[in-house]
């Protein structure tokens, strides 16, 4: 009897009603309506991560739909070993990577286009944001994704490491290398950008 009481004493995980875990528990218990609450909380963040990762608005919502369908399917097997967001963002980044991989493969079979010279000449009216965005877009995925997660979404190195399933040192190194690469790209526009 005492043992049972002890177990009961150990069990309580005090979760507020707005906590992700409690919502997930209710979902697992059969209350599938709470999924819309989870969706409401995280959809914009997910959509933005997709947007900055792809550097493009095309297909953002399609990928976001895929992300949440996957979450809905596997939410009942969620093991509460990490934060829900870590799991959610990992799924998001993986979906983005899949999308980019498919896009790269498709581009092999597409006829070559005359790429617009992004940074060669800049008019006075040129939007600095646009220039920087294009510069970021030219970075390789493995450098760009940690950088944007850090600078645009404010992820910590640890969060980026968890999301991308790599070491924290790797994240630090990749962010540094991304910045070095950006500096080189933007060097000709040093004056305009007041770097």
């Amino acid at each position, binding site marked *: 009897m005492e043992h049972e009481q002890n177990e009961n004493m150990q069990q309580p995980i005090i979760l507020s009603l707005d906590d992700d875990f409690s919502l997930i528990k209710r979902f697992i218990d059969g209350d599938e309506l709470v999924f819309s609450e989870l*969706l409401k909380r995280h959809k914009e963040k997910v959509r*933005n991560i997709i947007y900055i990762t792809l550097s493009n608005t095309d297909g953002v919502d399609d990928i*976001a*739909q895929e992300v949440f*369908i996957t979450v809905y399917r596997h939410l009942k097997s969620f093991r509460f070993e990490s934060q829900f967001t870590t799991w959610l963002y990992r799924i998001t980044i993986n979906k983005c990577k899949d999308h980019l991989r498919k896009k790269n493969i498709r581009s092999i079979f597409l006829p070559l286009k005359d790429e617009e010279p992004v940074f060669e000449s800049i008019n006075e009216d040129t939007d600095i*944001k646009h220039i920087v*965005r294009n510069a970021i877009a030219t970075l390789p995925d493995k450098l760009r994704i940690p950088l944007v997660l850090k600078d645009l979404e404010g992820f910590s190195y640890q969060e980026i490491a968890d999301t991308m399933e790599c070491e924290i040192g790797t994240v*630090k*190194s990749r962010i540094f290398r991304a910045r070095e690469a*950006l500096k080189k790209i933007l060097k000709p526009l040093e004056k305009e950008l007041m770097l």
Partner: protein
Amino acid sequence: MRKNKTDIELLSAYVDGELSPAEKKNIEEKIKSSLELQKELTDLKKLKELTSASVDRISESPFFETRLFANLNAESKSKINLKKWIPISSLTIVTLALMAVLKFNPNLLDNIIKEQESNLVGFYKENLQPLLYAANLTNEDIFNFAVYQELPLDNTNNQILKLGYDTKGAEYFEIKKANEIKEPDNLRKFVAALDFDEDEIKKVDSIIGSYSNQISALVLVNDQNAVAINPNIWNTRKLILADILAFAEKHASSNFNKMIPNQTMQFDDRSVAKWVNEAKAMKDNQYIFCTSDSIFKEDFVFDMTEYEKNLEKMTDNLAELSEQKAILREYRFKVDSSNSRKKRNADWTQQFQVFVDTNFIKVSVQNFIVDIPEIDLPNFDSIAIVIHEATQNVRSVRPPAPPMTVGNNSYNYEYNTVAPRKKGRTDVNLDSLMQIKNKQNNKIRIEQNENIKSDSQNNSIQFFYNDSLILMHNQELKKEMDNLRKELQRFRENFKDPQLKNNDTIKKDSSNDVDIIEI
């Protein structure tokens, strides 16, 4: 340079606020003392500011949730539907495939059924043998068959083939257990009642015996417990009866008329020959097969001549069987119904009606009989004494006539012919005349049933035994004769010698001598 690179990497992390306090303190000291690091820090901060400001937040998607739930519903629906339709769709595919096969090969099922049927029929047709050989059919049995419509199917007389008429007058046959105990020696009584002499008895025997093979070929059996019965067996029975009665009438007309006093039927050779021809004109290649699982009619030709070639071998086997006192198999029928054949064999069911029970089969026959008038004889036991007394003082007068052969090889026997009598009609059915009498006789017969076995086998053995006795007696007689001859010789020699005279001896020997001469 490497040192610088490491420091700059630390600076990057410093800008991001990701250094440990120790690392932070360390790099801050380095920044203070290095202009290069200070410049680098400024650039990194400016770059971070640019990148952070480079991307605006993406505008909200108002229909995102609606679209998502629509997708989720569609997905779950399609999943459920797919599962639901898997068994039905597979069934549909199989059905369509079967329809396609049957469209291009419409007779497939019929062929399969026919093939199986022919296999089954072939199976039951194998090794068919005349059952009645196995039953050691005697003239007595054939006579009983002709008169009382019963044939024993096995040695022990446990099962019989019974022909009869149902209430509507339709003919049927039954295979059933023999309930009644047969009266013995009906043929002998019949012959005695008609007061036949030895020659006539032989002729009657030859007439009856001539049908033995024919009857045998009509009931066939095999190892598969199948019994094949030729419907012609009814006609054959009537033919035998008519033949016997025709002979009886011609050879002992007065006694015969007393036995069947009211008969208006004439059994002359012409009508008998006509019936023979009619019976032979009937299709005799169709047998009714009674098997353990079905009853069917099938064409089957039984080659009697070929069978007779193997007869010797078979009789040897039978002798062995009878030595071992082996009981021939019993026929048991377990048949559910014969309905399945009704559709396919409408004519068959019109001709035959089959009734099946666990221990007997009854097959009714319609439209399969030759119009031979039916004659039933009275019970011989009941009238034997009367006939005997009546015939004591009456001698039948038979006009002498040359013997004549009727029919072909199958019915090869001789009998004397007389001119057909003119009175009466030739096509009167005697059934109505004899019906009342038959009923009475049947009652009497059942009452008189006693536990007596008719055993024709014993008769034949006894006959053989008599023969051997005669032989034995002859041998003894020969010996005695030899002894007598020797004594006579001695007596003659003694007679020449007067000293050895003895009157008594002479008398005795002379009497013996007479005996010898007589012999």
